[in-house]
């Protein structure tokens, strides 16, 4: 697992949602993207239902958080260096 260094605490369930979205966006080749997308939305639906939130609202909030979460992390780009 990547090492995150966030300035403020984050609920593990929210972090799991962000990681699930990241895994989907970072998938390559086309074989698993559909499954990973479904897994992310299943997690969003469960989390939203537990909090009596509209899934669309939670999804939009998680997606808005996602780039800031990535930028707050201390891991380098996952891209391999160009030859």
């Amino acid at each position, binding site marked *: 697992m990547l090492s995150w260094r966030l300035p403020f605490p984050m609920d593990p369930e*929210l972090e799991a949602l962000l990681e699930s979205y990241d895994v989907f966006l970072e998938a390559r080749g086309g074989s698993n993207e559909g499954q990973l997308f479904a897994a992310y939305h299943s997690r969003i639906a469960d989390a939203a239902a537990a909090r009596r939130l509209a899934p669309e609202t939670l999804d939009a909030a998680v997606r808005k958080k996602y780039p800031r979460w990535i930028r707050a992390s201390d891991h380098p780009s996952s891209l391999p260096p160009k030859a």
Partner: protein
Amino acid sequence: MLAQWGRPVLRARLDFSVGSGHRSIVNGIATSLEGSPPGLTSEKTGQELVCYWLDRCDDFMDQQRKHLIEREPSPRELAEHVDTLKFMIRVTLSLQALVADPDSPARRFARQISGKLLQLQASLDLLLNPMTDADADAVLAAAFPNGSGARSLA
């Protein structure tokens, strides 16, 4: 749609001359089509077209990660990227329709194309998300009282 290939922004963002996958495909075509029966030739060409495009989509997603997600893009960078992203979605939609043809030789790639299309469309949703940072933080702070990764107002 083809007219857009000539647009400067697309030339800058979609470099079709790079990528080992592309080169190997081109070389593969050059060496394998000689003497092939017509049916096999079209099948191979169709499959290589799909593989080529999936490679380009992956390259595009890598660049998006590096230049628009890992760092804050300028408004111009964002606008140019969104323009290219929409083009990628249009081409992938066309390819999806092409492989959905029951007689398509590349039919077995339908799942990969659908998956890649989901990723491209999700990227557009991500980049054009109308929710403000403040609204997102408020939703997440209320939903996750144990910490939303944002500064507490208390």
